[in-house]
Each structure stands twice: as structure tokens, then as C-alpha cells.
């Protein structure tokens, strides 16, 4: 796997790469390099199985992190590609032409994070949140508690033990 990482580093100017135990490697590239790298991994290095696409919101850095995870079933190795994109220009090139299932992931990420994937099929169709018109709910600034307090009928807290206090008393009674 180290040879593959070296080849990727030479061809795609990786911003960083690391190897974790249990056959998982991480590579970070610039957003313009992503689709060529995915294509290279699929066709040349035989990472033919696309596992998942997911996003992480780093609001303090004003960035989104996109993660593309692939598997090579001959070598039994996984590789995760990390791409950082600005929250101000939340847009990424689509990769659905490489694996058709990516269109579904991109549709969900557009809905949950507001990251657009122009020309991805049905990307602007609602997926899980039909009729949602607020800010994308997986963004860090979306406050679930505030939303539920404003949206739903206020209810008194049911009588009972506060879970956090109860656990502390039961498990760690002597700790501060």
C-alpha cells in the first residue's frame, strides 16, 4: 500500500497522507485533483468498490471536509480521500460518472450540508427532508434544541432522574 501512496503522491501533489493499522490509508488532495484521483484509483489501482461519501463541518475554519472511501478487494485495502472546501463556495465536482451510487450520497449531502454538486442527477430533489426550507440541518450552526423548542409544542420535562447526574452518582460518586 505504501507504494500506491507514493505513486499517488507523485502524480497528484497530495497535501498529506497517512497509513493507519488495519489496512486504512488517508490521502488529502486539492478539490481540483479529486475526480482525476478517484478515476486513477478506480481504473489503475483497482479500488473498484466505492464505500461511502460523507461530509464534516469545520465551522471554526470556515471549511467543509468531504471524505471519499474506496476499497481494493484484491489487496483488501481501504483508502479515504479527504478534500477541504470553503463554506463560502460550498460546491464540488460530481463523481457519479465513476460510480452511479455516488449520486445518492451527493443528493443527501446537498440536502444536509448545502454542498452543491452541479450536474449530479436529481441532486436538488428532496431526499430525506421533504418540504424542508430552513438551513441545511447538519451544518454546525443549526441548533436542534432551539429548533425543536420553536417548532414543537412546549412540554414540561417528564419527572425522573437527569441521566447525567444519575450516571455520575452511580458510576463515579467520589469524583468532582
Amino acid at each position, binding site marked *: 500500500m505504501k507504494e500506491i501512496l507514493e505513486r499517488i503522491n507523485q502524480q497528484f501533489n497530495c497535501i498529506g497522507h497517512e497509513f*493507519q493499522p488495519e489496512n486504512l490509508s488517508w490521502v488529502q488532495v486539492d478539490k481540483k485533483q479529486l475526480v482525476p484521483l478517484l478515476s486513477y484509483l478506480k481504473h489503475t489501482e483497482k479500488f473498484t468498490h466505492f464505500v*461511502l461519501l460523507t461530509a464534516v463541518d469545520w465551522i471554526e475554519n470556515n471549511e467543509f471536509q468531504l471524505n471519499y472511501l474506496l476499497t481494493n478487494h484484491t489487496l483488501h485495502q481501504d483508502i479515504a480521500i479527504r478534500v477541504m472546501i470553503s463554506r463560502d463556495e460550498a460546491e464540488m465536482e460530481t463523481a457519479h460518472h465513476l460510480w452511479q*451510487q455516488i449520486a445518492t450520497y451527493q443528493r443527501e449531502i446537498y440536502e444536509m450540508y448545502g454542498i452543491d454538486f452541479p450536474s449530479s442527477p436529481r441532486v436538488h430533489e428532496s431526499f*430525506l427532508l421533504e418540504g424542508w426550507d430552513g438551513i441545511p440541518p*447538519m451544518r454546525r450552526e443549526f441548533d436542534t434544541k432551539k429548533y425543536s423548542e420553536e417548532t414543537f409544542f412546549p412540554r414540561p420535562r417528564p419527572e425522573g432522574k437527569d441521566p*447525567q447526574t444519575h450516571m455520575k452518582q452511580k458510576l463515579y460518586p467520589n469524583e468532582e
Partner: protein
Amino acid sequence: MKNKLFNITPDRSKYPTIGKDGKPEIDLSSGKFVKIWQGPNHPGVTGNMSLELTLSGDEIVDAKTHVGYLHRGFEKLFERRKYIQCFPTSVRMCVPESDSNEYCLAVGTEKLAGIEVPDRAQWLRMLTLEMSRLQMLLRIVPGQGGTMGLGIGVQWGMYLRDLILDRFEELTGGRIYHMYILPGGVRGGLPDGFEARLEENLKDIEKFVHRIDNVLYQNAVFRKRAMGVGYLDPSWIDEYGVVGSNARAAGFKRDVRKDNPYLFYNQLNWEVPVKTESDIYTRARIRWYDLQVTIDLIRQILAKIPKTGDVRAKTPNVMHWKIPAGQTYVKSESSRGEFGFFMVSDGTDKPRRINLRGPSYTHAVSLLERMLINANISDVGALMVSLQTCPPEIER
């Protein structure tokens, strides 16, 4: 027959013309088509999802999967909870097979925190994962017949599944949601006499294995309706990220327990069942083999499980446990295939991001939408169950 998705040859003279994009030109006002919704409340749909089907006669010409009826925002809620508080939520991400959720979450936390798990705890984890697979297979194996009106196997399977849930109740206190696997190990050892009672259950299930073969797999109606129907082309396996029994029925020998052995699976002996026909019958048949393999694995685990030793490593105070910053992906083989958690920690006591990768995400959305085209309306339920779709893991 094998190279066709469905074993019907429709009369295309009355059907829509195919446009330049390769898709049929559907005009609902022409009277040649009808649009119906199968689900979300429908006996032919697996759980809380629905299918928007456009029919021409009884043949499907367009299909869309609709999910969102069960969305509970778990992944968002994780960001507000401490790691230990995520466990009761995580088990509900895939309801019928909850142990894979807690296993992946626990291992992800341990990897990020650098915690070593005692050997005995790892064997106990394997035991619960295999018991969980067994109870899931006892639902899905006869459930395939249930979609075609063969209900007797379902009654047998649910009874036997209840016996395994009894053992889970004895071991963990819970029948469906166990929260038995926690960071550092498991909550406790086996109760006295547990192995003997589980062995009794396994003997009962073995009888079922042979009965269900006669009732379901040798049944003329089932064979007629399942053989050659719902063909999954092997070239679609990677294109759509197909895993588990669906891939193994198409000739792909893929099993995370063999490919990337975790726990002590490399100390057990078994063969991964593989077939190549790739139709509804074969996918159902693969699960019947899986059932036998799982019974065998549970016996091997019971024979090798250490009787003494720690069941849980010492962890910091879970209420103030700050997990070092890092990212990881943990995968396991569920009864449906590769099941994984992508986890990101930012160094605080709450996860930055936890994302579930469930097999149904692709099986029930992009793949199912493709496979339903040209299917007969009466085969939709059987096709969905044969792909073993589980909507809760799509809507985390």
C-alpha cells in the same frame, strides 16, 4: 433466461417510445400509464419507505425510492452527546440487527482513544455479533417466502428468533437493543448454563434449516417465481457498491470477516458461500447457507471462549472522557454485508461526526430503482426482500 433481469417478454408495441436519453417517454395523460405508490404502509415493502412506481400494464417503466418517513436525526444528535451517551441512540440506527451498530461505535472509540480490549471480551463480542446475525437470518430466510404468500416459514422463523432473543435477554437484559458492547469490552460474562441453553436453541434451529428447505426452497411456486427473476448483473456490483449476500450470489466472494479479519474470526474455520445465478432464488439460498454457517460459528465460539479473564478494559471516566482528535473507519460484516462507521473526533468529549455506512443505502435506493425497471408489479416485494433492504440505516 439468466441474462435478463426478469423472465417476461413484454409486448412493446403498446409501450412508450424510448427517448434519446434511453429512458421511456412517459405521458401520464395518454392513459397508457398509471402511477401508484407502494408504501410506506404496505405489506410488500420492507419497513418505512415507499416506491413511486409508474406502470404500463403490470410492468414498471419508472421507479423512484422515497425515504424520510423514519428520519430521526441520529447523526446530528451524536454531535451533542458524549460518546457513552451515543450508544443507546446508535443501536436504533439499524433496528433488526442492533449489535453491529454498538460494535462499530465501540471499536471506533477504542481506536481513536488507543484502548486495548481483553481477549475474553473480544470472544464475547463475536458471540453476540453471530447471535445477532442468526436472529436476523431467522427473519429474512423465511421472510423471502412471506413475500409470495408462503407464511408458514415466517411463523417458524419468528418463534425460533424469539428463542435467540431470550438468550439475549438473559445475557444483556434487552431483547432487541442490547448496549452490551461498550468501549473497552462488554458489560459482563456469560450467565451460568448459558452455553447449554444456547446449544438447545441451535438444535431447534437446525431442524428448522431442513424443514425450511423442503417448505420454501423445494416449493414449486417459490421456485417458479424466484428462479431467473430479479437478475443482478455482476457488472453492477461495483457500480452500485453491492455487498454481502447480494454480491456473493453474483459470484463475488466478499466477506469482511475473511477479507479484513477483525476480533478472532481468523481463528475460526468456515467457507464463505458463493453462487453465481444472481437471481432472487440464489440470494435467498445464499442466506440459507449463511444460516448454517452462523450456527457452526456460534458453536466454534462457544468451544473456544475463555471461561475466565477480564471482560472490560479500564477506561477514563466516561462522563468526562475526551477522545484524542482523529478520524477512523470501522467496518464489520452484518447479515446484509459491509456495515461501517466513519468517525471523526476533534479532541473534545463529544464526537465531531459519526456517519453510518449501511448496505441498504445503495441496495434500497440507487440499485433498487435500477432493478425495478421492467419488473412485474407482483415481483416488487420479493425483489426488495431479496436485496435485504433495511430503511432505518438509510435514514440515520
